[in-house]
């Protein structure tokens, strides 16, 4: 068996380093928590602490967690939204360039509206259904959190 060339050794070392550091970072940052549904995972970034706190005092905390309102019901779409939001949130939090009072993007707002209609279909299906025509949270703004 011929001795491995220098570039091959370097590559192996670099890949090992990347996987090692990356893996440790993932564990240290409790990255796996983001794949599940535990609301405490959202507050791993301290920005979300106030929302978690006020959710615990809201009417919806007995019925819905963060993901129930902020990610779509369809499992595939759910993980696409989780990935996009995760990317946006982590870049903003890493760079630190976000306002004190964070506001939902249009696409995030639509997900919330869909989810209101998803769970409360029995009550609202006979009402105006179009996301652009009527907004649930415009009036029921504080049911989830302040």
């Amino acid at each position, binding site marked *: 068996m011929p001795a491995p*060339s220098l*570039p*091959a050794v*370097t*590559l192996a*070392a*670099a*890949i090992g*380093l*990347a996987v*090692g*550091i*990356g893996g*440790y*970072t993932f564990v*240290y*940052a409790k990255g796996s928590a983001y794949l599940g549904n535990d609301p405490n995972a959202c507050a791993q*970034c*301290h*920005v979300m*602490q106030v929302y978690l706190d006020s959710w615990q005092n809201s009417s919806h905390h007995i019925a819905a967690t963060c993901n129930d309102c902020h990610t779509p019901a369809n499992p595939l779409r759910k993980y696409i939204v989780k990935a996009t939001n995760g990317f946006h949130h982590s870049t903003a*939090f*890493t760079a630190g360039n976000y*306002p*004190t*009072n964070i*506001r939902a993007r249009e696409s995030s707002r639509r997900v919330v509206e869909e989810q209101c209609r998803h769970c409360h279909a029995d009550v609202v299906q006979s009402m105006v259904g179009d996301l652009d025509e009527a907004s649930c949270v415009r009036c029921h*703004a504080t049911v989830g959190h302040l």
Partner: protein
Amino acid sequence: MTSPNDNRSRKPLIVAAVVALLVAVAGAALLANISERKQEARVQNVRVVELTDDTVDPAVWGKNFPFEYDTYRKTVDQQRTKYGGSEALPRTPDDADPRSIVSQEKIEEDPRLKTMWAGYAFSVDFREERGHAYMLDDQTFTKRQTVVKQPGTCMQCHGSVYVPMKKLGNGDIIKGFEVMNQMPYSETRKIVDHPVTCIDCHDSQTLALRVTRPGFIEGLRAFKASQGVQNYDVNKQATRQEMRAYVCGQCHVEYYFKGPEKRLVFPWAKGLKVDEIMAYYDEIGFKDWVHKDSGAPALKAQHPEFEMWNQGVHARSGVSCADCHMPYQRIGATKVSDHWVRSPLLNINRACQGCHKWNEEELKQRVHTIQDRTYEARNRAMDALMGLIGDIKAAKDSGKSDDQLEAARYLQRRAQFFLDFVEAENSTGFHADQEAVRILGDAANYARQGQIAVRDPSFKPSVPIVKIATATPGPMQAAPGTNPSQAPATPAAPGSGPGQSTPQQVTPSPKK
């Protein structure tokens, strides 16, 4: 040994190794960042100096509270809003006034103010208010000092007087307050070194908010008594949220100087509304000065932000001054009250959007709508007042007696105080929008009634006429001969509605 073939096969390997290394570096950087963010989440408060109840210098407090101190220092910034804020204007310093930067002169922007305040020190110099950092200098060097000997009472709200007051009163701030009120302003200036500082609102040991100004302690006690609550002690009985407005209310209020001892009194014994304050002044027969053109016993309203806020929907909802003017900001994971006290319009995300889920432009437009309407009503009331002052002056010159002019002069006093209550208030109506326009409507009504009273002795005004002595000058009367009230304002003719008068000539357009 090395063939060209080998080189080709190694190239991708080298590129891959470099990429993998960069990934490792990026991963390490991210790891460090996450670690920092986790550190931030732990509240850190390091006490590096010992603060006492005598520590006046904010720089010393700043060593323990660097975030608060950094923002406190930003009140030097000058920035305009549509109707308020201040512009930094260059000025050539001289011996009397070393300021090289000042703000715009309001009495030049609207010369009708000179007519309104004729014979009063404010007709000489009245610049747009600047940030807290300038309160001491701007009061020390205003030209008002040259026409009226200002008493030490003024220092109550233009300097950090808590510790000096305590020293003057040998530990008793009420005694020290009484001594300071009677000193000349120039003497108090020698014992005061700072504009408002940490110790004026905070307890040095617990950092809790506390009221240090006797004027507010006594004023609020009188107001609570009018509501049936006896012996109210603000520092013992107020809630934390109330204190977040009360510490501001120590200065941002209507006040007067009572008696020869020049005691600073907040006229709240009948209530906080303009009508109730007016009734209080009428009952004690107080006037600030005798109007130079008309001879009316006039009153000057001072920045009644606290009183006006009390009439508005924000106060009703439990929103305090600090919620909008000193909103929380995140520093790391900690929330810190922004001590850069300024207009919420310059800070909409933090000041408004914590509660109001609309975009910034929408929120700004809502405020401007209120302010535009208030400013329009203010101009109409101002035109009406100019009409009345001109009429009384003409009637006086044509030989009408003091008795014949008494009703008109009282109506001027009333119209002028109501108008000034909105004019001097630093929100252009926003703190209580409907109340502001209501007051301006009343002001215009009193002024027009006064114009009728000048002409028709049988006219019965809608309010009782109160006799106020005008034989002696008021406490803030400008010395004779120093009055530049020959203002170019044209008094509107009676009967000519605001539509027919020429507001364009006298109405400055607000700068954006």
